[in-house]
């Protein structure tokens, strides 16, 4: 431990001091402490001398691709159930929605994808190139707690490109950490799968050859296929 001569100046105050954001009285107190304390002065120097970071560009707001929620109602529900039963899936492991979701009032789940090309420019998110990166924005009701993960269904395969993320704070358009890529020529169905725990999420995804009921999905076409 590096010994401070008194009460260490917090990193946030040092940052605000460096940015010139502190009120005059606080500024004087920080300056006085830094003059006496080599340890805090070293911390401040690490801020002042930090190399300029090459920050990744931010995506400007763009018209959003309308997310659609996978609906399993009417004849599609029966068709889906028949297909699942035919595949024996219903008997192997029942697919169920997180119970907490069924009771959410006045809220909904949504998935929004932001597509960044190789130069980090925002592109229309209805299709994909191999060089593109996608960031996922999740909307969930504020009272809801659980986990969310992204599952991609493509050419009969399923893969999960991002870590499962615990949603301790739900709200509108929460960006999931990380970005993912899509490859191949086949249409990709990108789904956000919500569950009450990571174990439940893994069970949902591993048992599904198609998105489980209640997943929020959006379909993207390959640019190569589109331009063919």
């Amino acid at each position, binding site marked *: *431990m*590096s010994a*401070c001569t008194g*009460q*260490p*100046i*917090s*990193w*946030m*105050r040092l*940052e*605000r001091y*460096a*940015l010139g*954001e502190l009120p005059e009285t606080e500024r004087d107190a920080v300056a006085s402490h830094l003059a006496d304390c080599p*340890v*805090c002065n*070293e*911390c401040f120097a*690490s*801020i002042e001398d*930090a190399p*300029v*970071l090459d*920050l*990744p560009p*931010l*995506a*400007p*707001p763009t018209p959003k691709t309308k997310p659609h929620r996978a609906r399993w109602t009417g004849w599609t529900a029966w068709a889906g159930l028949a297909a699942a039963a035919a595949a024996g899936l219903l008997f192997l492991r029942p697919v169920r929605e997180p119970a907490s979701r069924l009771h959410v009032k006045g809220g909904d789940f949504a998935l*929004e994808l*932001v597509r960044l090309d190789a130069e980090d420019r925002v592109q229309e998110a209805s299709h994909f190139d191999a060089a593109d990166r996608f*960031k996922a*924005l999740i909307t969930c009701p504020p009272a809801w707690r659980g*986990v969310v993960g992204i599952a991609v269904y493509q050419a009969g395969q399923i893969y999960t490109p991002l*870590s*499962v*993320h*615990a949603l*301790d*704070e739900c709200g*509108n*358009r*929460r*960006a*999931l*950490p*990380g970005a993912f890529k899509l490859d191949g020529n086949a249409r990709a169905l990108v789904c956000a799968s919500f569950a009450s725990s*990571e174990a439940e999420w893994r069970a949902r995804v591993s048992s599904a050859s198609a998105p489980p009921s209640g997943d929020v999905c959006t379909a993207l076409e390959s640019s190569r296929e589109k331009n063919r």
Partner: protein
Amino acid sequence: METYRRYAPALIRKAERMLQSHDDALDVVHALFVELLQRDSSEIDLPYLYRAVTNRCLNLIRDNSSRRRLLSRQDVVLRGPVRSTCEDRAIDLDLLTKLSARLDRQSVEILVYRYVDDMTQEEIASLLRLSRKTIGHRLDRIHETVRALIENDGGDT
């Protein structure tokens, strides 16, 4: 977004101290600003962003797969100089992951502000809009948990 250029470097340094990974710190801060841009948020200041980054880092630490990845790649240098200790221990990523499993969410947040960000109790109280007395009580419980953890692990935390 001027706020991004102004505050992102400070927030990345803060996330690096918690996660001990530059790439993950960058990703957390970038994701936060992507979200703020989508929400068209304005009038945000550094204390607000500090809290947002703290909570996002704690999300990563609590997530099993992210935690494993962070622990396998941690760069101890990014923790920075240790100016405050809890029961004579520096709160680094190893200890933070263990404590995040034993403490409630707000206590872990307080722990980070006090022993990673070196804030005073008054600063934490102001940031969380709680009384200084409440922060003091929470810190007492945090100390008890750290002591118990050290004793259970035979001092090898």
